[in-house]
């Protein structure tokens, strides 16, 4: 299990991540989403034992990942910025990782390389960005880790390879009980691949739930009234993206849906349309405060 226990990470005076707690259970794939600079990479590197948290603990299998190096032989971290030894071929890199990962399997490596159609005798640095990413994923899976941390794992992969990679991860997690944490901007992919999701919004984790439940607390309403509508009417409801046009009010709300529906019913609307949000819409709902009015930029 990967566990973030109240992790706070600062760069000097700047707090990148504050009091973040979540778990990635064995066999589970957890998607971490957030805008650029929200702290995803910091959180992943802290969990990988690369960064030392100022507060809290990054745990892998119940052990502190920074202080206990032993647990890291079952960890593979795939960073956003990949590193390959100068002049090394894929096979050379495999030998390199084989030394560091006791469970590294050359057999798996060969199979996966062949699966992706990668030439193991070619220098990795000569590969395209997407191929390098595939190569790194090959090394990760060939190491048979118990914990995989993937930073922007799908960057540069073509659609076909994305599908393959997703299948591989799902298969590997299910079979080995590996805990996988993926950070990404690609929300549909996260929704498709992950069973749990966390949204990090500049320092804090504001959503931490299963993908199935992510829409539970969010609704988009379209309400028609008899007469003119006043915003004041909606006081007490945590709404965003509100637009009122004559007798029609459209908004998104988060909270206890039963209670919200009760309040709306008390307003005696003519009709109420209630729609569940997709992951992307939830993300946009949560990120709304960070958005700019684009129309203002060029005025």
């Amino acid at each position, binding site marked *: 299990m990967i566990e973030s226990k109240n992790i706070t990470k600062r*760069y000097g005076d700047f707090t990148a991540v504050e009091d973040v707690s979540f778990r990635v259970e064995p066999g589970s794939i957890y998607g971490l989403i957030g805008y650029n600079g929200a702290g995803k990479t910091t959180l992943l590197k802290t969990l990988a034992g690369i960064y*030392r948290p100022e507060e809290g603990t990054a745990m892998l299998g119940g052990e502190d990942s920074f202080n206990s190096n032993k647990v890291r032989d079952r960890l*593979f971290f795939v960073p956003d910025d*990949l590193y390959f030894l100068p002049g090394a071929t894929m096979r050379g890199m495999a030998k390199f990782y084989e*030394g*560091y*990962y006791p469970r*590294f399997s050359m057999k798996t490596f060969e199979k996966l390389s062949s699966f992706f159609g990668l030439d193991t005798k070619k220098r990795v640095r000569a590969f395209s960005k997407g191929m390098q990413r595939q190569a790194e994923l090959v090394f990760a899976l060939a190491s*048979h880790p118990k914990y995989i941390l993937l930073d922007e794992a799908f960057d540069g992969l073509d659609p076909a390879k994305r599908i393959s990679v997703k299948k591989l991860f799902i298969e590997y997690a299910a079979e080995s009980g590996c805990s996988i944490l993926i950070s990404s901007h690609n929300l549909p992919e996260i929704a498709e691949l992950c069973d749990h999701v966390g949204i990090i919004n500049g320092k804090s984790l504001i959503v931490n739930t299963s993908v199935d439940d992510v829409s539970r607390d969010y609704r988009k309403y379209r309400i028609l009234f008899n007469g003119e509508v006043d915003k004041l009417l909606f006081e007490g409801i945590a709404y965003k993206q509100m637009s009122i046009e004559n007798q029609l009010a459209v908004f998104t709300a988060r909270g206890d849906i039963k209670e919200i529906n009760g309040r709306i019913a008390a307003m005696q609307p003519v009709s109420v349309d209630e729609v569940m949000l997709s992951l992307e819409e939830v993300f946009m709902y949560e990120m709304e405060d960070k958005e700019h009015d684009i129309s203002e930029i060029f005025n």
Partner: protein
Amino acid sequence: MIFRKSLTKPLLKDLKHSFRSGAALPALFSLMILFLINNYQSLKSYMQQAEEYRTPGYRYFFSDLIYSQGILVVLLFAFGVLMGVSAFNFVNSKKMSNVFFSFNIKRKDLFVNRCIASVSYLFLGVLLPMLAVLLINNHYLGFEGVILVPWFYLVVAMFSYALIGFSVAVLAAICAGSIFESALYSLIFLFSPTILLYGADLLLGTFLQGFPVINSVSSGMGYAPRIISTEVGIQNQLGFLNPFTFLDTGADSGSYMGGSWLTALAKANKGTAIDVGITQYWPIFLWFGISALFLFTAAKTLNARKAENAGSFGKNRAARGYSVTILSIFAFCFMASKFGQQRVLAIALSVLAFFAVYFILEFAILRSFREVKSGLIKLPIVLGVLLCVLAIPFTGAFGYGKKLPDAKDVDKIYISHLSQNNLFFEGAEYGTAYGPFTSQSDIAMLLDLHKTLIEQSSAFDSKFPSEDSDERQTGYYVQYRLKDGTSINRYYPIEGETLQNAVIKVADSEYTKQSLKEYFLMPYEELQTKINGFYENGKDPYSLGAEEYNIFSRLNAYSQFSSPESLSNLYLIAKNGRQTGGALSQYLDDAGMNALKQCILNDYARLGAQRVLFPQDRVLGAIVFNGYFYSQQRSQEITITHPDYSSAIDFMYSSRAVQVTEDMSETVAFLREKDLLKYFDSDLKIVGAGIVQVANLADEMQRKNYAWYFGKESSMFAPIFYDISQYGDWQEHLKGMGMEIKTNGEETARLFSNADMTAYPQPDGYVVQFVFSDNSTIALYVPPEKMP
């Protein structure tokens, strides 16, 4: 799932990786060291003359290293630094630290593996080329066990340089955020001792009276404290703490290892056994310890290092603060010494310089005023320490400048001077020792001089002779060797009457008289054999205070006799510049030469230095001892040559001249008896003279301190020595030089009669340019009291 368990443990894999990834640099440096040691010319020379070198003498190729020691040391430091930076580059690369820090290896193990690999390579990088040297030596010159002693020392010494560079670079790399910052910190760390020791010498040399290091910043001699002797100065005394000099100073600077660590190898010539003992190794052991301390600190720093600092700049507070503070301290010392003559201004400006450098560097690195401000707390402490340090020389360093040894405790005394010209009691270079003075009377005389200087020293603004001064001045350096084995070294400015009295007293000392006598009368072959013996025995004749140096020192008595062969021949020169051509020694056999020397000695002894150096009687001409130019000439007759201006300059510059005055009765009588006195006479008619006062001439030449520039070797006379025939009207030419023209026969004859050929000019004295009927010319000095 089936796993094939790797047999390679991560730790061993990492060690293997460290060796593999670090192999290129040592291979390159090993080759460079090999080529440096075995430079082509040396090899060729040895190969061609192998037989000659093999018997009876014995030389080793690497003895030539002494000529490339500087390059070798730089190469070894570069080797170490590059190995360190390259081995720990991974901590400064985000990409690489992501990989290595996420492996199942403790940071401590990552550190140890890279150190093991790098240090092994450093050692091999030095050992392999040295093994090659050994093999080449043995191949061409045959095996000699004696070579192994210096060879081993050289291997260890070279390795120690590389190790220092490595350990410093490792610490720097781990503190840094980028390769650039690693290199920057490496340089600052390596140069820190130099900066601090140099700064201390600057401060003490400027403000502490008596301190035997001269701050020459204000002297126009370049921006460096001038070290008088290898035994004095903070840089020298604590040189073992400086990675660049720790082997040069060694434990015993008096030994042959002093001065140059490679000197030991040069002494391997001719099969002399090299006794490299533990004393030569202790600075190496000391720096092995310091290197280990650097590495230990680096390991601790790596453990605490924030991986997120990779790619950043100036994030390590300790390294940044140390570097900026070191540079600020240097600015403080430099500014304090620059304006040392005005003490209040010096303090104010040095504090300002300290803050300015600190702020500029901090702001340049951090680019945030808020962050710079947060680091200010340590500044008052550093500044307070600096001001306290400065207070020590300001207050006389607990009586340091006024300390005078008891005469009964003094075993012997060496003295030296500091001036650009070869005035007075001097050697060939700055700080060359003159002595030892051992007699009670000489010791009392020098202690008395020291006492006078202590009383006068506070009156001087600058410790270094200044070209802006109107006074004749120089620096006086004295070293007391006490009976208890310790020594006291002091330096004072000395000028005016005190200087003149000192010169006369030293010239009249028992030591000088004895030296001159010994030198004049010792057979040349005996002298030469003695000198050669020093070199053959591997003694360094240039290390101050070495007993054997005594003989070299004696050669310099009265300053003009600096080479033994210079007394093997002589010629006579008349006051108008006409000189005898051919070798007079053809007419004076050995007995005759010795008799002439004995006459000169007797006259010097009888007249005393006052009358020899500042003649009162008429100057007749000069006897010039010069073995260089005429020893090959074997003309049977003495001819008179017409000197051009350059030979006249030669005469003033470098000849070993004995000015013959009328009161040198024995010498005059001898020359008359041998019918040689006639060569001082000449029927050449004086047609006129140009007169200029020394002070005015100094102004003309924009030099105020005539003593600085007008020694008897001064080239400042040159412009008026030119063959004036090329100027047509000589009077116009000399007027143009600011001279007063005299053409009256009586006046010019009196001037000529009163003129001296060699002189220590005073500002109110005169330089007179005589013009003769054949349009030839000569410039002579007329002291103010002899001016008609």
